[in-house]
């Protein structure tokens, strides 16, 4: 079945247009769905894009997590009917809603940070076999609240379930175990559980070599489970 991608637009989302463009450039049929809908139309793939939903005035993602469309998302996930990707603010929203474990805290620098980073697949997600262990991507980050945290009691389960999907590696793409642009626990950049994936970096911004990297094409293609173009 050809994927039908829906990008959810919350008030304050600002990567929605970039994300739509990125998926369209991969040939995927892509639409925008408003946050106040109560259904997902016939989407097979749902993306929660980056931005500052509701201004991030409460906690990043906390209000959007309870937008009307989120119930439809939860229901569709439990039916196994869709695959979900949360990017940056979208990842924060998934965590705030409890769809993914853990939470995103303020960067330890206390500052917003926009930079190119290398990330590496630590645990290949069962749902997306195309992502192989050790695969590296050069992707930008742009966030103030990207430090991944999870309670002590949940850490073992996170590893056991193979949820630790993506981690930051050093600027030369080497895994030193020390590099960490935002202070995430275990330098975690992304998590996956079942049909849901969330990450802080922005694959939709890495679609052309002249923008600094085209690794985002491979990343999003693997998420769509399409043959990379």
């Amino acid at each position: 079945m050809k994927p039908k991608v829906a990008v959810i637009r919350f008030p304050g989302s600002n990567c929605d247009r970039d994300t739509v463009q990125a998926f369209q450039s991969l040939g995927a049929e892509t639409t925008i769905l408003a946050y106040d809908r109560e259904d997902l139309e016939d989407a097979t793939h749902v993306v929660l894009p980056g931005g500052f939903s509701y201004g991030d005035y409460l906690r990043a993602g906390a209000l959007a997590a309870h937008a009307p469309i989120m119930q439809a998302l939860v229901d569709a996930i439990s039916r196994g009917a869709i695959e979900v990707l949360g990017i940056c603010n979208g990842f924060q929203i998934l965590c705030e809603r409890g769809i993914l474990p853990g939470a995103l805290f303020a960067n330890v620098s206390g500052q917003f940070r926009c930079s190119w980073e290398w990330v590496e697949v630590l645990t290949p997600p069962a749902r997306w076999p195309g992502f192989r262990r050790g695969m590296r991507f050069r992707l930008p980050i742009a966030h103030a609240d990207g430090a991944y945290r999870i309670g002590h009691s949940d850490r073992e389960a996170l590893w056991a379930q193979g949820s630790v999907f993506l981690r930051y590696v050093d600027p030369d793409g080497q895994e030193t175990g020390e590099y960490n642009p935002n202070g995430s626990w275990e330098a975690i950049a992304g998590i996956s559980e079942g049909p849901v994936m969330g990450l802080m970096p922005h694959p939709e911004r890495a679609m052309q070599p002249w923008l600094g990297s085209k690794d985002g094409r491979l990343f999003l293609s693997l998420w769509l489970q399409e043959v990379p173009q």
Partner: protein
Amino acid sequence: MTPDAVGLTAKEAERVRQLCGREPNDLEWGLFGALWSEHCSYKSSKRVLAWLPKEGPQVVAGPGGNAGVVRLDDRMEVAFKVESHNHPSYVEPVQGAATGVGGIIRDIVAMGARPIALMDSLRFGLEGNGQRLRDGVVAGIGGYGNAIGVPTVGGEVYYGPGYAKNPLVNVLCVGVRQSKDAIVGASGARPGQMVYLLGQATGRDGIHGASLLASRDFSADDQDMRPTVQVGDPYTGKLLMEATLAAIETGGVAAVQDLGAAGLVSASSELAVQSQVGLELHLDQVPCRESAMSGYEIMMSETQERMLLVLNSAHGGEALAAISQWGLNATPIGRVTASGRYVLYFGEREVANLEASWLVDGCPLTPAGKDLVAPAFKPMRPSPGSMEEGVEEGFDAGALMAIASDPDCRERRPIFQRYDSMIQTATVWGPDHEVSVLTVDGSPWGLALAVSGIGRWAAVDAYAGGAAAVSVVVSRLATQGAVALGLTDGLNAGNPDKPEVKQAFEQMVLGIRDAARALDVPVTGGNVSFHNETDGAAIWPTPVIGGVGRHFHPTAPVADSLNRPDVTLLLINPALSPSLGGSVWERQHGVLTAYPRVRLSDLAHTVTWLGTAVSDVDADIRAVRAVADGGLWLALVKMWLASAPSVGMTVTLEAVHAMPRLLSEEAGQFLAAVATTRVEATLLQLQSNAIGCLVVGQGHDGDYLELQVGRPSRWTRRWSRSQMRAAWQSWEGDSGGSGTP
């Protein structure tokens, strides 16, 4: 209410009475006070700004509107303008800077253009609370720009003693729109149409921001000005931006004006004058955030994130529907009339009845100087020390490293890393380059953007500084082979009532005029900020120039660094007699003499040649940079540090004047690395175009920079990459963020 209380002089008050033919009421006095403030009326600068060239076949809209507009190609147009938020940023750096960003974004949106890029030009003191102010300003710019989703693609920061209590925050915004869209702006309102207010509910914030805060000098006890600073809300700003653009797209918007300085009174009277219509506004209909706001407060409030829209009858309903899609409401607050009168009601009661043109154009203007020629160049004092006497006494490697690590020269990553420079996925070159390069949706061409304005260069000779700012910007565009389409000027100075400030301001504008003419680029709009003066100490006159260029191959910028070492280093259009006037070196040594006059016709030649040469395979220019702050030396350092690790450079200079040659900041010079196999041909090309050139070095394998002075070499110094990087990246107490390598 007395005229004095709203900031009017006795003479201005008399003029108001004359215009009205009666004693105005309190509200009317307030309206005049706000619009006749320096900030809104440009009374000290209007006649001077008229000197600037503003014509060109590519100009769609010149000065006077919300922003200038130039044509990129047959389909796309570019709206751009720089605006200052200096005074608010001193009083409250985070919100002052944030609302500056919000304000200039709304100006671009009001032209019907989608904002695609921000650049900022910042000035701080090095001492005292300079760092605190800078951190606040950077947080404010980032907080607003990052959230509203407009990338900050470049900028600059410089330091100087005068900026310690007068920080400068100038923000440039660039937007694009399709040519086929009717020009939106403030001039399209017609009688019978309804006036709507869109966005944030009006509160008591920012009252008197323009008339008092931004239009007078500061003194020690001005902390009481804090209540006049507005608060920015990028979330509403984002919704407002999208709603306004969506409304314009329906064809239902006849006129639009953003609410900035002097809020509703400024926006509505400007719109009335530009559309040549009358207005009737009902202040009791304005949605307010606080209870019992008076008509005066409603008119003066500078609450952010508001737009004034006039809708036409044909598609106005569609515009309203588009707005509500974004969760905002547009409230009808009045209508356009044919009377030409500007009438305000509160309930049934008429509370003001004036001509809008009295408010907008009535203010008595300060006469401009009559002398429209460049002031004579005063021969500079010789630079101190033995700098000019030759290599034995004068050469100083430590001084070179001190330049590389100077706050005016060092890397700005700790600042620009806090801005989202990549959102909208069009940033090919961002803030780690001196010229930004963007692709533009809907055009095969893209944009080259640059901003520059070094106050140090204008400190002694404002004419030279003004001309240099334009020259640097056009030079940076030329390194990309881009055609300069237009300039915007952010002019910052002290108290214009002081003769020396006024004179320097006029000379600065003359310098801008002469350079813009010589380089054939119109100035399509900008901003003037006077009264950057605290306790009697003024800033250096600071001409912030932003430039927009048409880039013919945006996905393949002309490199500013090297991948391979087989190059010869050329200094193109070198200074004829290198001067250290106005340089970082002088400032470090406690003197400041006149900055050299840019040789404008030589630069114009060079720019023309570069326009084709940078993409000419025969010339084979591998990398090129414009010389500016830190001179040839800093251009070399930056080119080298950005190059592949295997690339080294050997720089060879004559012994005489070696240091001035390296450190002269004369604009219009270019450092180019040309393939060594092609260098003879390139030199011939330059010669036949009568463009001066010096061979200053070679690339080599090996990860070091070597300087050889004298032929044969009498003095040699070598730096490793890590040494040089450590100097250039010395951030002194700045945090680079955790994990920064």
